[in-house]
């Protein structure tokens, strides 16, 4: 499959929680090898859409395609999910040390200890947390916790990396680290779906931008074509800063 193809597509998605419609999406595609940004105000349904795209949430109506093939509910299993990784806004780290957490997805996939050790060492050096490997996760700062979760997401070399407002709760230094290193950590083959409010990220990383409002996608275009004037106050409203 060439770069620029649709790797994921959703059609006629309806998601309700307690009889309230959260998402109503007629069509949305994720383009392979690109940084696909999803932006919108708080409560617009960005995380709900990300949960559906990453196949973590299966409780909705609609169709999801992966590489052009319809994926049934039964097929949205861990075998398929193992091709994806998610970096959450507030990462959950499992009891134990940093090494255990980064190695965990590899252990779940049945890699042997030698390969796990090599991969963990490699990714932790890239993210500059190799000195934290033996440390308990309960002693880490917010920025360090997010770095560990980034390492854990990237260690499996996912086909699609989902990022859910990864820098929202971080301090300035950690945001700068994320913004200056993130693009280098993502390989050419990797597709990124990113929910973000960060102007610098949108300016420097976005290839495509989808604008979500009240559960509906109002536009989904290449960054150069995207009309930033449609955004309300608070959501990257300063067009000059972005374009």
């Amino acid at each position: 499959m060439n770069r620029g193809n649709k790797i994921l597509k959703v059609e006629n998605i309806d998601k309700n929680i307690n009889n309230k419609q959260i998402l109503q999406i007629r069509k949305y595609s994720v383009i392979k090898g690109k940084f696909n940004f999803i932006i919108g105000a708080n409560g617009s349904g960005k995380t709900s859409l990300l949960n559906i795209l990453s196949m973590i949430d299966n409780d909705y109506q609609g169709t999801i395609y992966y590489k052009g093939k319809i994926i049934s509910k039964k097929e949205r299993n861990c075998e398929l999910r193992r091709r994806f990784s998610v970096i959450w806004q507030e990462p959950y780290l499992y009891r134990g040390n940093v090494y255990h957490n980064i190695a965990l997805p590899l252990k779940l996939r049945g890699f042997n200890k030698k390969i796990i050790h090599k991969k963990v060492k490699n990714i932790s050096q890239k993210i500059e947390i190799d000195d934290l490997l033996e440390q308990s996760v309960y002693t880490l700062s917010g920025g360090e916790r997010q770095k560990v979760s980034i390492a854990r997401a990237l260690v499996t070399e996912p086909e699609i990396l989902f990022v859910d407002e990864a820098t929202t709760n971080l301090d300035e230094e950690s945001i700068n680290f994320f913004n200056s290193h993130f693009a280098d950590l993502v390989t050419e083959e990797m597709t990124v779906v990113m929910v973000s409010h960060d102007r610098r990220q949108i300016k420097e990383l976005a290839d495509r931008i989808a604008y979500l409002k009240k559960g509906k996608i109002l536009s989904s275009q290449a960054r150069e074509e995207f009309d930033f004037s449609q955004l309300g106050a608070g959501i990257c409203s300063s067009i000059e800063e972005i374009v």
Partner: protein
Amino acid sequence: MNYYSEAFREAFNLIITLDRELLNVVATSLRLSTSSTIIASTIAVPMAVIIARKDFSAKKFFNVILNTLLSLPTVVVGIFVYSLISRRGILGEYQLLFSSTGIIMGQTILILPLITALVRNTIFSLDEKLYKTAKSLGATKKQQFKLLIMEARYGIIGAVIAGFGRVLGEIGISMMLGGNIRGVTRTMTTAMALETNKGRFSFALALGIILLILSFTINFLVYFLQEGEHYEQR
């Protein structure tokens, strides 16, 4: 006063000299309590996970029943199991009355709600993000369950130890279903009652001291596992 100080002296002497009869009673108690705790935990842990994590119509009712059963008197369990395993009971033909199995059955029923409720509470208190993260890391259903148990392990161990402590100190079930048979169903608590009635106060006192030490150790372990220093970092 002299009688009591003499009894204490003799009780300590029985403990220090590792009196054979005393050890026999302690061993019987530990054997029965361990068996019932293992059986109850094997049932309680998966049941607690289901109650905590699954949505089913009778969930509220189930939780109310579970909470009510927490304060179940041991004699009530004793009578209930007695009605099942006595000669005229539906399990009468298996001759379980006045046997180790009878006591184990009763003790298992006694601590099943306790362990289930404590494990359920532990799972309730876990961060909801744990489940989403496990899924996103590519865990199978079985691996998700294993991760959940690993995250809740200290709470689960604490619940199991609490259950063990409860059966170790109970008397109603052991007395009604065990019959206090020497070397078979004579537990620390039933032996204490018997020996006190017989006037062998020092022997009962020695068992009381051992029971107290065991209870203290159990409570210390539960505290250490659930609230101890650096709990968060373990």
